[in-house]
């Protein structure tokens, strides 16, 4: 296992940078997620690390060694592909054994390693089958088996769960997390699915248009989004965003937006933004339903079983709120809403305003 360090990585296709001066580090044994919408460059970064593509600028260090000039085979990384990329003409056993055979591992050692990996992944009965004879979830396990059998310095996953149905995806997520706890392998995992990112990752690197938007733990990204992109990308249902304004009142700073007036108290950190247009972000669970001075009209309610997602209209804007499962109100009925000042996210020119409290 080794640390992965990426410095100033840039990759261009036809003049436009798909990966733009990206820097981050994955500590030894850490599970790091590259998250972002499709086309944000996350898969390209993975391919650059694997050596399947070459960068225009920047450096990639694995275990302290610069690997940019090396072929994929000399980087000692293993990769699990979105389509699994199992070799269709080889049995499950031979698929898992393939990286060892290429490295001329002794036959007995290969057998031991393959059976060990198969046991770990519970695919011992499938070893004689061909990839086309097993299910999608089983193929996924075989692909993981092929990756772990070599004991590489670094694991790369390219959207490995996106071809599975939702139920299986949840189960595989739990298994992957367990596998990582057991192997303690340095892992770089690409996904566009924020649920995967939030549940699997120890660290998330959020990308948009080839540029890093924020690096942090899942909690960091959710609780303290550094900019509007992070705020709106992370969270289901999404964060409510309103155009607002900061005004000085007797008791301190007041944030006005869409029928709300939230008193922030004395906030010296907000002084520079007084009288300026800001963007106000509120997570749906931070909206309190039932009391307060903002009047809203309920437009739609989704009963999820454990909670109810409310879509309401406040002034010109729409707001999403979470309510308990016992929430009962007719559509079109008036609602009273309020917001806790602690839970407000304020953004100025797209960036988070720090030090508001």
């Amino acid at each position: 296992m080794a640390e992965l360090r990426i410095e100033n990585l840039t990759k261009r296709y036809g003049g436009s940078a798909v990966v733009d001066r990206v820097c981050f580090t994955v500590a030894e044994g850490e599970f790091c997620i590259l998250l972002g919408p499709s086309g944000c460059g996350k898969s390209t970064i993975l391919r650059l690390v694997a050596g399947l593509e070459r960068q225009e600028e920047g450096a990639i260090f694995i275990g302290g060694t610069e690997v940019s000039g090396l072929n994929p085979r000399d980087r000692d990384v293993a990769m699990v592909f979105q389509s699994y990329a199992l070799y269709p003409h080889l049995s499950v056993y031979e698929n898992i054994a393939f990286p060892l055979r290429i490295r001329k591992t002794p036959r007995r050692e290969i057998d031991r390693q393959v059976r060990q990996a198969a046991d770990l992944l519970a695919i011992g009965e499938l070893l004689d089958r061909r990839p086309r004879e097993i299910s999608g979830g089983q193929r996924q396990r075989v692909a993981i088996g092929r990756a772990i059998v070599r004991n590489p310095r670094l694991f790369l996953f390219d959207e490995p769960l996106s071809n599975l149905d939702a139920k299986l995806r949840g189960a595989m997520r739990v298994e992957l997390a367990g596998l990582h706890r057991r192997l303690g392998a340095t892992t770089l995992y690409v996904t566009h699915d924020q649920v995967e990112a939030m549940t699997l990752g120890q660290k998330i690197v959020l990308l948009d248009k080839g540029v890093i938007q924020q690096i942090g733990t899942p909690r960091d990204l959710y609780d303290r989004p550094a900019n509007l992109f992070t705020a709106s990308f992370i969270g289901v249902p999404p964060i409510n965003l309103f155009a607002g304004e900061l005004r000085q009142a007797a008791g301190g700073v007041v944030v006005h937006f869409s029928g709300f007036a939230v008193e922030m108290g004395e906030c010296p950190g907000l002084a520079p933004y007084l009288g300026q247009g800001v963007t106000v972000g509120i997570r749906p669970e931070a909206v309190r339903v039932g009391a307060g001075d903002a009047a809203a009209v309920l437009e739609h309610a989704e009963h999820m079983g454990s909670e109810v997602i409310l879509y309401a209209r406040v002034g010109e804007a729409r707001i999403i709120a979470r309510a308990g499962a016992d929430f009962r109100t007719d559509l079109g009925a008036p609602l009273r809403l309020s917001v806790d000042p602690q839970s407000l996210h304020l953004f100025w020119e797209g960036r988070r305003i720090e030090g508001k409290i």
Partner: protein
Amino acid sequence: MRGLHRLGFLLLVLAILAASLFPFLWFVLTSLKTQVEVTAIPPRLVPSGSLAFYRAALQEYNLLHFMKNSVIVAGFSTLGTLFLSLFAGYALARLRIRHKPLIMGSLLLVSMFPQISIAGPVWRILDQLGWLNTYQGLIVPYITLTLPLGVWIMTGFFRELPRELEDAARVDGCSHLQTLFKIIVPLAAPGVFTAAILVFIYAWNEFFFALLIMTQQPYQTLPVGIALFQGQYTIPWGEIAAASTMATVPLVLLVLLFQRRIVRGLSAGAIKG
């Protein structure tokens, strides 16, 4: 109505089969006749099953000698063409090469020249090299002539294979060559066999260049050898028929054998899912 449709379809297929198989059937029947039966009027449809012509073709006309030459020439032509088109096809299917359509187009163009238009230059080149009446004198032109076909077939098959498999192989530790031979070629097996069969059939049956280049008996191939069975005044129909049958049977066997591989290869092509 459906029954009628089926019947019509069946009749049509039978008619086509009969038309294309008739000459073959005729010389197989002829080969099993006796000398008297061959020239009998009216012609006898059912031969007496004599193997005299086969014996004659093998012993008097030295058929096995021509067959050996054909095996050598067709075999090496096939190997050569396959070897070159594997690499060329892989490169054309995968690498970012400029003017790829132009390259593919000119390959096709080359294969369109009528043989007679290149016969003269080819003969002169071979004469200069001292390759007339040598195996390579026929093998090299055959490779040249069948290469476009081979490259087109291989490029087509390689293109169909998912790139992720190659990426996986490279991350798993393969060099480019290992990727080609351990992953790509086995998966493109149907293409490889298709190309092999077509090239082999071409080289096995080719008559014009063989006649032009191989003027001495020791190097002549089957088609030329059989054609030269006839003397100035005699045409040994029976022996020619027997020899032709023996020349065709290996080809039919080969095709049947490879066809099974092709079908199996195609069904193994299920890669994603």
